[in-house]
């Protein structure tokens, strides 16, 4: 008894961790919004729930964004850093609230906002959202019919999306591998579910969910094992500690390399790099288009931030070991994405392959591994990728928004042949889609061009001029199929009565408009955003 007391009293008192709430506020806001959404889900009357959920999500994201801007502004530069870096390690070292991370928060929130607006579009399905009424019902069953009759809707999509957003934000800023793993799951699990919730073509949607889930889990296990090996090697999850262990490494080289490889697997899977891309086309095609947009923009951004952080901070010391391999991956990814998309007949699949190709271009910037120097303000790998992600994310959300509007009796018509003559039917819509295509192709006066330019310059700065040459050749190849779509829309006569273009509500229209403006604006005056990305500086260790 006494002993127990004694032991009890002897216990060292656990110091309460101090959390920089001010810095982390954006995450908390989104998480709070998500939780609030769950509560609303429980208590709010069904009739007006959809609107309330939309409101919560939108308001939450906007608030978080404003706060993010604030946080970004008063990140104080790090002393005695070899090169410019802002921010600090927070939450007991779990998170690094630094320039790139917060910038990533910003764009993630923007992507989230735009996607939420697409989620909330209800005019296309006759007053219902694009998500299935009751996921539990088997497709085509009586229950489903009846659910549609009573206009049941899954309003959980909003909290789910918000949770995924939280995961992404954590992923982008997590400073130790364990947090990173948790964040990875937090962002993945809701997406698995969201993928299965399409209102039309539910079989495909569920299949997409299943594939995404199984393969995602599979990859995250490798990621986890990589973490385990790293931990075994360095005895810590902290990126900075790992860095120390890596820089003055002595023995058991191979274990470190295996760890590096496995961690890379998890991250490359998320960004959809070859040979871990196989899920991308199927999931992009099967998932509800708004979800696809969200994934395409958000997941890629978050995953790339994590990739940069792990490899520049933790494994920066062994960059000469992993760079050649990543270069190979980059080349294969660019090439396969570009080539295979040539023979695609489905718009969403084609966009999926194009996203693979873009992952390749982003990897080119990444392998440059040019982290800048304090004296010159040259474009660094980090800033170039941040800019590229911004442009690519907005453009692809816009593109998918356009996809939601081209419909026939069976819902969206994603088969390319149905898109013939769209330019005659509605020039504005086709024009904006063409603009996104040109931006993907990297034609000047669009943001995509500046993006390509930045990643290539980063690669060259890193000494990979020949990789740049390969890159430009592949982008010429990639341009071919974007151009094909334009030919289809403008120069080809419609088959039959041609596609019908649904009249969207202000929300989808707004999304497309914003996407167009951003794509053009970043093409003509990219200066401000580029300066922000430069201002973000390097990662904090």
């Amino acid at each position, binding site marked *: 008894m006494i002993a127990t007391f004694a032991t009890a009293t002897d216990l060292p008192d656990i110091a309460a961790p101090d959390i920089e709430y001010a810095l982390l506020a954006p995450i908390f806001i989104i998480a709070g919004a998500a939780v609030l959404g769950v509560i609303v889900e429980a208590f709010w009357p069904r009739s007006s729930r959809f609107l309330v959920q939309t409101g919560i999500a939108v308001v939450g994201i906007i608030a978080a964004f404003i706060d993010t801007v604030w946080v970004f502004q008063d990140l104080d530069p790090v002393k005695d850093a070899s090169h410019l870096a802002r921010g600090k390690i927070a939450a007991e070292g779990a998170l690094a609230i630094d320039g790139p991370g917060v910038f990533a928060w910003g764009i993630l929130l923007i992507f989230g906002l735009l996607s939420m607006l697409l989620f909330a579009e209800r005019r296309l399905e006759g007053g219902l959202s694009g998500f299935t009424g009751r996921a539990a019902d088997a497709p085509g069953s009586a229950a489903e019919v009846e659910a549609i009759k009573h206009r049941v809707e899954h309003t959980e999509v909003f909290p789910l999306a918000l949770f995924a957003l939280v995961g992404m934000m954590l992923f982008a800023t997590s400073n130790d591998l364990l947090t990173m793993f948790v964040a990875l799951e937090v962002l993945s699990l809701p997406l698995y579910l969201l993928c299965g919730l399409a209102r039309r073509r539910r079989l495909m949607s569920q299949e997409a969910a299943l594939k995404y889930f199984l393969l995602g889990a599979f990859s995250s296990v490798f990621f986890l094992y990589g973490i385990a090996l790293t931990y075994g090697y360095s005895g810590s999850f902290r990126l900075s500690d790992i860095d120390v262990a890596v820089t003055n490494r002595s023995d058991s080289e191979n274990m470190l390399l295996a760890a590096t*490889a496995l961690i890379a697997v998890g991250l490359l899977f998320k960004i959809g790099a070859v040979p871990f891309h196989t899920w991308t086309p199927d999931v992009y095609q099967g998932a509800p288009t708004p979800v696809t947009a969200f994934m395409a923009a958000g997941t890629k951004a978050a995953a790339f931030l994590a990739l940069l952080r792990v490899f520049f901070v933790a494994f920066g010391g062994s960059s000469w070991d992993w760079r050649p391999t990543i270069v190979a991956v980059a080349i294969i990814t660019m090439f396969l994405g570009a*080539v295979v998309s*040539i*023979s*695609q007949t489905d718009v969403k699949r084609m966009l999926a392959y194009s996203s693979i190709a873009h992952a390749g271009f982003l990897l080119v910037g990444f392998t440059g591994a040019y982290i800048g120097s304090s004296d010159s303000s040259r474009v660094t790998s980090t800033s170039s990728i941040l800019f590229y992600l911004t442009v690519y994310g907005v453009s692809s959300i816009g593109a998918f928004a356009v996809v939601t509007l081209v419909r026939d009796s069976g819902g969206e018509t994603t088969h390319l042949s149905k898109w013939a003559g769209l330019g005659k039917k509605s020039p504005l819509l086709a024009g904006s889609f063409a603009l996104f295509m040109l931006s993907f192709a990297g034609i000047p006066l669009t943001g995509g061009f500046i993006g390509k330019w930045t990643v290539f310059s980063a690669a060259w700065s890193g000494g990979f001029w020949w990789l740049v040459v390969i890159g430009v050749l592949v982008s010429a190849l990639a341009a071919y199929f974007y151009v094909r779509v334009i030919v289809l829309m403008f120069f080809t006569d419609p088959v039959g009565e041609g596609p019908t273009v649904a009249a969207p509500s202000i929300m989808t229209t707004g999304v497309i408009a914003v996407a167009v403006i951003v794509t053009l604006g970043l093409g003509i005056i990219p200066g401000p955003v580029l300066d922000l990305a430069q201002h973000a500086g390097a990662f904090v260790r």
Partner: protein
Amino acid sequence: MFDLQWLLIAIPLASGLGLLVWGKEGDRFGHLIGTVASALSFLFGVVLFASLLGKDGEDRSQSTKLFTWIDAGSFHVDMGFTFDQLSGLFVLLITGVGTLIHVYSIGYMAHDERRRRFFAFLNIFIAAMLTLVLASDYLVLFLGWEGVGLASYLLIGFWQHKDSAAAAAKKAFVVNRVGDLGMALGIMLMFTEFGTSSIHAVNGAITGASGSVATALGLLLLLGACGKSAQVPLQSWLLDAMEGPTPVSALIHAATMVTAGVYLVVRSNGIFDASEAARTAVIVVGLVTLLAGAWIGCAKDDIKKALAGSTMSQIGYMMLAAGLGPAGYAFAIFHLITHGFFKANMFLGAGSVMHGMNDDVEMRHYGGLRTFMPITFATFGLGYLAIIGVPPFAGFWSKDKIIEAAFGQNVWVGLGALLGAGVTAFYMTRLMIMTFFSEKRWREEVHPHESPRVMTWPLIGLAALSAVGGILLVSDWISEWLEPITGHAEHEELAIPAIVLTLIITVVVLIGVAAAVFFYNREPIAAETPADSSVSIFARAGRHELYGNELNDAVVVRPTRHLTRFLVWFDGKGVDGFVTGVADRLGDTSQFLRKPQTGYVRSYALTMFGGVAVLVLALLAVTLA
């Protein structure tokens, strides 16, 4: 006053362009304006020439700079003209004969609804030809050179609705282009060598340059001359050129343009004096053409083509003379002028005959026309006497001098020239017999009649000139007149006295005449052209223009056509095929690479697993390496 010499060119040029743009309203008096323009130019030329006579030797070369034509980088060309003894003579010849032919054409083209355009083209020709002879820079000369080529193209093809005419026009232009190739390269060489292409400067500085440069320049210019003057090997276009209206044949393809080559050689005497080889080449070309032309002239039954062959041959004489150097330049020009008179005269005469014979050119359908068109006969006869070189007519003096000079150069050359004289006599006599003598062989629908006055007066004028043209030689006036330009040549003595040679020439000429009479006055001439098989090998070769066209076809035209066909194929299958081939391969690759996307999640997992393995191994490999 010489500062206004550009007016010589400007007047006909303005009139020509004006007539072109004027439109239908101009049809009524377009021809008059054209004629007046040419006449004005002639009168002004006479005035200038007269005042040139007034000056003493040094001032007889009057240059003016109109404006700077080209000044780019280190290349500088002035639009400048030089009116001197040589160009003066040409101005008179061109505008004089030109005006007469304008007058003649008023009648000849009376019934052509495009007469206004015809006169416009004639004026443009006059302007271009004057530019050619007045130019004081080789590039300006080239401007006129190609200008006359254009005019000849337009006029040969004037009756464009005839395929043969259009083809002949194109042929003339293209063959001339080959010559111009030489000209152009020559001018470039001058620019490279001397930094200028001013005629005076180049001919002055040539002595400072290496002999090879002089030879190269000489040969390149000779190539140009061959093209313009239808000398072997670029002779083939001239006979086809007879598709053009007869006044054109008279003015361009007999009197003036075709002699531009001779002018070029004489004008470039500095260059040719500096290169023995170039001169020899000129002589050879002249001699060959002389005989070839004569040969062709003997075999043709088409009156215009017979005359064209004779033109070739006569220009051969001039070339030959020009090739003799200072000894021959003056005589070349002399023969050029006299030939201008009598050949224009005979062409117009032929035109007058055709006018009376419903534009039939086949001599075998003529015969006995002397009574029906006496004036034409008379004038033509004078021309005939002049060309075969019967004293005292113009041709006698000029040709005699050339043959004499040829013997002075080399006995074989002399013999060739002599033979040519005989053949000339033969074919011209044949032509006279078939046309004006012998029995009538007309188609029934034709009613021969004399041409209107407007056509006969020019004939008379030219006939008179051909008769008295010889006076230019009185006390060697022409040689002395041209000496400042051509340089002095002391007259070397021949083995035999000149008078004897003259006698020999006359005898040879008479033999030629006799032979023709013997052959063509014995039995009646067949109204139908005998088949090739029935005539002698010589006649056959002559009819086919010594197979020049066949040669061109075999050597140039057909190979080019084959090459073109091959290249078209190659461009499609080879160059473009490569590009499209790459595109196709990419398409196949794409189809192939989408196969692994089977849709089976386990195969995806397998791919990923393989990826993991590869990645790990790759990293290990990199570090081991």
